């Protein structure tokens, strides 16, 4: 049998709340430590304990770390989903399963490895109450033997995971070894998947996007944080609390920051506005439902011109609508958040490194433009573990924007008006309470250039036109798109976490169908001019999004001149799972007329792709 080295996905199916996350991270980390590019995707229910959950680890020698659609190696620990999990595998794959489930009776075209988990755990764990948790480490041991994962690396990863809890680590080490020994003595390797040491992760880290965003905010000098718990955002402010307690106290133990768990998202953004208005670097973190609640204040911030940073860790739908699944579904609502004519600034990170960097950019841009800046992360990026090179220490001076000081107030003289466009870039000068500078009265859209109350039509229109100019100026300040041109007719545009699937998809398109592609990765709204230029350079442009309604394309239709987006086609992924390359490639091949719709996997796009094509014609 041919070996498949460092190119497979493992899916571990367990019950939520059974403590499997630790075991899963130990697998992920061990493979990472062996130098192989990895990614981990947690597909978990909105539930504390009892419902099914899946964790996928992908190892890929070429560095492709998007979710892999096909499962190569299944660990079936959950009786409830085991049958369906097994039935959905492609032939030739392998299954480790809890022996009493008798999954081997289901199919003959898979490799089955039965493991008597309960029996094994009883020998290593005398405390019956702990067995449920420790049991998971046994499958790590089994995988270590079957996939050839170095036991030393497993132990290192396990000890790192348990930190100072030595007793728990020892107990779990026992289970790990018991699993490995059992596999060695009782299981015969008969699947092709193995791990071999490489050096592709040297000097790299494993980190979640929310942790990276929190770090970025801390190094950006955030001082006021107001937040309300919501999945998948909570871990951002929570890790921020941890870091700030450790690194942001002065020598007397006094806090150089304030973090408030507010009564709701409306209060969170209200506190951000108050703090931003009074000169602090202020932020909140939330998800779609919270963004909706913040809508009114977001409009006030736009018109009163108050800075603030909002992390939106996007997820699927409102209320009980798949809160633990990923999406890019807040693009249109957030870009145009609030009533009246409002245009917000969005930054869109694709990686943990960009979460760190854009968190910092966000504060600079918010203060420069005196408005809210939304960092549009998502559940996949925020809550999953990603490998990354280490973050670069920020040396850049903070941009605190146009704040009136004793020096520049003299230059402006009696001419200072809070909303006057002195520099012709749409950005006015503001003053801060407590600096001795002139005060002004902050209110909604009804004001003249001096900040006085006005309902005059000319005052109002002049002001909203200036805000338009400000938005134009922002195009040059926001992170520019990353462009890779090619001699081809086909361009791809993507943003956020779709990036990782697009990178792999481009390779598939070229190797499978000889289709070369150009690529623009969008990183912000308002759209820098390069976006329009890129679309015009290519005959067919595929815009990849993780939502049903092609939201970014809609936004482009609004923003770009008429007709520019006519040849932009949509590739849409919106089932709540992280986007994968196979689905993208198949969708594009169908739209390119290179693959028949009925030959691609049903879950995809066939009916919709047809609709898309019809609409384009």
């Amino acid at each position, binding site marked *: 049998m041919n070996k498949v080295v460092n190119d497979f996905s493992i899916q571990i199916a367990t019950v939520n709340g059974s403590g499997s996350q630790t075991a899963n991270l130990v697998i992920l980390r061990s493979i990472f430590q062996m130098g192989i590019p990895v990614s981990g995707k947690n597909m978990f229910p909105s539930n504390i304990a009892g419902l099914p959950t899946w964790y996928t680890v992908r190892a890929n020698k070429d560095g492709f770390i998007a979710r892999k659609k096909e499962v190569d190696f299944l660990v079936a620990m959950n009786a409830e989903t085991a049958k369906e999990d097994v039935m959905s595998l492609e032939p030739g794959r392998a299954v480790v399963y809890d022996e009493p489930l008798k999954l081997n009776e289901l199919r003959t075209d898979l490799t089955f490895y039965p493991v008597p988990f309960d029996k094994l755990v009883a020998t290593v764990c005398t405390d019956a109450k702990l067995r449920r948790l420790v049991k998971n480490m046994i499958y790590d041991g089994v995988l270590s033997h079957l996939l050839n994962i170095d036991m030393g690396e497993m132990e290192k990863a396990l000890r790192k995971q348990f930190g100072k809890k030595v007793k728990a680590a020892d107990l779990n080490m026992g289970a790990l070894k018991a699993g490995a020994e059992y596999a060695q003595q009782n299981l015969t390797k008969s699947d092709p998947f193995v791990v071999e040491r490489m050096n592709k992760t040297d000097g790299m*880290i494993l980190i979640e996007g929310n942790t990276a965003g929190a770090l970025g905010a801390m190094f950006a000098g955030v001082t*006021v944080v*107001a937040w309300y718990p919501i999945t998948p955002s909570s871990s951002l402010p929570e890790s921020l609390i941890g870091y700030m307690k450790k690194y942001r106290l002065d020598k007397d133990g006094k806090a150089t920051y304030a973090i*408030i768990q507010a009564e709701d998202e409306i209060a969170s953004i*209200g506190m951000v506005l*108050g*703090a931003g208005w009074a000169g*602090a670097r202020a932020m909140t973190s939330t998800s779609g439902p919270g963004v909706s609640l913040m809508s*009114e204040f977001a409009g006030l911030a736009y018109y009163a011109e108050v800075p603030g940073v909002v992390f939106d860790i996007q997820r699927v739908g409102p209320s009980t609508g798949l809160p633990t699944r990923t999406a890019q579904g807040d693009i249109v609502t957030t870009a145009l958040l609030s009533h009246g004519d409002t245009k917000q600034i969005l930054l869109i990170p694709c990686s943990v490194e960009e979460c760190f960097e854009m968190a910092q950019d966000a504060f600079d841009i918010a203060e420069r433009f005196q408005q809210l800046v939304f960092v549009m992360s998502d559940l996949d990026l925020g809550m999953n573990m990603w490998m990354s090179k280490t973050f670069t220490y920020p040396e850049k001076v903070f941009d605190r924007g146009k704040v009136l000081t004793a020096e520049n107030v003299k230059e402006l003289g009696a001419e200072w008006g809070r909303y006057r466009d002195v520099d012709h870039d749409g950005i006015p000068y503001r003053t801060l309470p407590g600096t001795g500078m002139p005060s002004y009265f902050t209110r909604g859209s009804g004001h003249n250039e001096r900040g006085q109350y006005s309902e005059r039509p000319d005052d109002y229109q002049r002001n909203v036109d200036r805000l338009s100019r400000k938005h134009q100026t922002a195009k040059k300040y926001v992170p520019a798109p990353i462009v890779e041109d090619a001699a081809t007719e086909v361009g791809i545009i993507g943003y956020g976490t779709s990036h990782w699937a697009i990178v792999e998809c481009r390779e598939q398109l070229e190797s499978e169908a000889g289709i070369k592609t150009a690529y623009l990765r969008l990183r912000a709204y308002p759209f820098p001019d390069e976006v329009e230029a890129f679309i015009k350079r290519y005959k067919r442009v595929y815009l990849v999004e993780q939502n049903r309604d092609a939201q970014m394309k809609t936004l482009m239709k609004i923003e770009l001149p008429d007709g520019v987006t006519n040849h932009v086609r949509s590739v849409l992924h919106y089932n709540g799972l992280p986007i994968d390359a196979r689905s993208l490639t198949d969708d594009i091949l169908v739209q390119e007329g290179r693959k028949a719709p009925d030959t691609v996997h049903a879950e995809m796009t066939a009916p919709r792709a047809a609709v898309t094509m019809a609409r384009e014609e």
Partner: protein
Amino acid sequence: MADVKKNRIGLEITPYRGGKTTLCAGCGHNAISERIIDAFFEMGIHPRDVLKLSGIGCSSKTPAYFLADAHGFNSVHGRMPSVGTGALLANKKMIAIGVSGDGDTGAIGIGQFVHLMRRNVPITYIIEDNGCYGLTKGQFSPTADLGSTLKNGVVNDLPPIDTCMLAVQLGASFVARSFSGDKKQLLSILKAAIAHRGTAMIDVISPCVTFNDHEGSTKSYAYAKEHDEAMGEVNFVPFFEDINIDYDPGTTTAVTMHDGSKLFLKKVAEDYNPTDKLSAIRLMYETHARGEFPTGILYIEPDKDDLLTQLNLVDTPLAFLPTEVVRPGKDVLDAVMEEHR
């Protein structure tokens, strides 16, 4: 030429005044604005050191009519408490006054009101309470009287919320009620509230001359004058003045504020103790039962830690901390990166 009166920091009253009011002639809110001007002037607080905030409604327009030189923020309906909280977190040295109404507080803003009290945010929070929505033409507010009638005949069949009772229960450390027409009492209460460190909640009955000043309204001038049961006299002596008022220790409670100011409350009821929550609540129940409303300082807890104290913030306002204080060094990033290897 007669000397123009100046306050202890050498300012005349002009910078304490605001723009011309656009409220109805005779509106109780205008009288409250006047008292706010007097209080800040007499206490000698520089208007530039003041944050004046409001929500939406007639009441919330008033910050434009006092302290023109203060930093004003007319926020959104019912959500001034969060904006005020944020501003104070950014700059703990500012003195904050928030003006709200009975609709802005009791209906749309009840959630933020609750949590403002709970956190004991250092702000003087004034409810200009007229029992109706004036700016949208007279609809019932949550403090409207049970059984009161709109011009179109609609009857209010819901009981009113008592914001003072709520505030005491929620943790406000200074709770008072007054009447917009009672110049002397309102001024004393305002001064004490401004000197207080913590949430000072003042419900000021303020008749709406256009929509709710009719016979039978408990928020009318006539009713307030008749049924206002003042809890004795309130005398406030700021820290910079010598104590020279006459008081009889047997019938007067003296409360020392955090800045050394003294508050003297002349007792009317023998067993009334303004530092005791139960007394305050009993008083409110009993006077309500008689169709009256007690005015004065109903409850005070001068030593309770406010939010900013609890947060143990550095002395410099957070807004003005320099980069080297708020951006940890490279060693910190290196250490964190090491943890994630």
